């Protein structure tokens, strides 16, 4: 395996690069937490103001789809973790298997989400539509949060899937020092945050009013 230069400029060692990647990524993840946190705060406030409407609206999300999708993402976190751990042990086949499974599970989530959106639209569960089926009108607030929160999460997940696929190809071609670099662990951190965000979205959007 041919590796690029032994010193990962501008760092003096791979160990320092790994620390910097981890520290920097966690700071970015903290900003992502606040980013989604704005939506969570809005949701919290409106659920506090209109608890009955939220309970009525919450019962109309598809609990089985949300549950299966949560299981998919939890599994993808496990496969991603194995990929990162294996990279430190230079176990290339395991890294590729882990990354491949992670991307595949992510695509499975998106596919199920697309089906779920399609059924929601066919039931007119879109706030602002004239045929919105629920009363009182504050149920539309719940569904505003549902569409925006899951949509924003899906955008983040798509970015993650593309990144995992790219890293799969780069590791397979030995395009960078994947065993010592901090970029694969950083990718893992991003993916796990997508999972953690969904872990909190799941009870807020799918386990209300049951």
């Amino acid at each position, binding site marked *: 395996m041919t590796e690029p230069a032994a010193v990962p400029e501008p760092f003096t060692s791979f160990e320092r690069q790994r620390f910097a990647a981890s520290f920097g990524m966690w700071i970015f993840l903290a900003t992502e937490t606040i980013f989604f946190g704005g939506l969570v705060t809005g949701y919290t406030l409106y659920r506090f103001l209109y608890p009955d409407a939220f309970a009525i609206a919450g019962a109309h999300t598809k609990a089985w789809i949300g549950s299966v999708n949560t299981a998919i993402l*939890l599994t993808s976190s496990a496969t991603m*973790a194995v990929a990162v751990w*294996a990279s430190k042990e230079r176990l290339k086949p*395991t890294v590729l298997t882990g990354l491949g499974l992670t991307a595949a599970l992510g695509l499975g989530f998106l596919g199920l989400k697309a089906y779920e959106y399609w059924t929601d639209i066919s039931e007119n569960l879109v706030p602002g539509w004239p045929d919105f089926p629920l009363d009182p009108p504050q149920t539309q607030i719940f569904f505003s949060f549902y569409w925006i929160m899951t949509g924003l999460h899906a955008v983040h997940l798509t970015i993650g899937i593309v990144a995992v696929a790219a890293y799969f190809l780069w590791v397979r071609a030995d395009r960078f020092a994947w065993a010592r670099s901090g970029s694969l662990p950083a990718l893992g951190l991003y993916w796990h945050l997508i999972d953690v965000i969904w872990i909190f979205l799941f*009870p807020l959007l799918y386990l209300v009013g*049951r």
Partner: protein
Amino acid sequence: MSAPTASPARLWRKAALVWLALSALLATTIVCAYLPLGDIKLWVSLAIAATKALLVAVIFMELRDDGAVVRLAAIAGALWLAVLITLVIAESATRQHDLTVFGQQVAAQPGAAEPAAPDP
């Protein structure tokens, strides 16, 4: 190239153990959602979610192995989110007046007096 200190099987097993714990918590939260738990239902589901997130953060995201500086960055995100939510809820819950839009009362704040009938 140094010899690996862990076999693939050991890594998969480690991940599988955490996955089993996460799956058990997922099953628990789903079941609890359908039980007649009353007011504590939301807190139960949030507590279970927080436990799952902690498992992912400490083991999968390796916060257990990282230094204090990295853990500080991780805690900062959660801390400021807690500040945001706490202050917004505190502000909303302690409002004294009724919400008035365009001269018509549309909603009473929790704890405030009942809204008067809208003007014709």
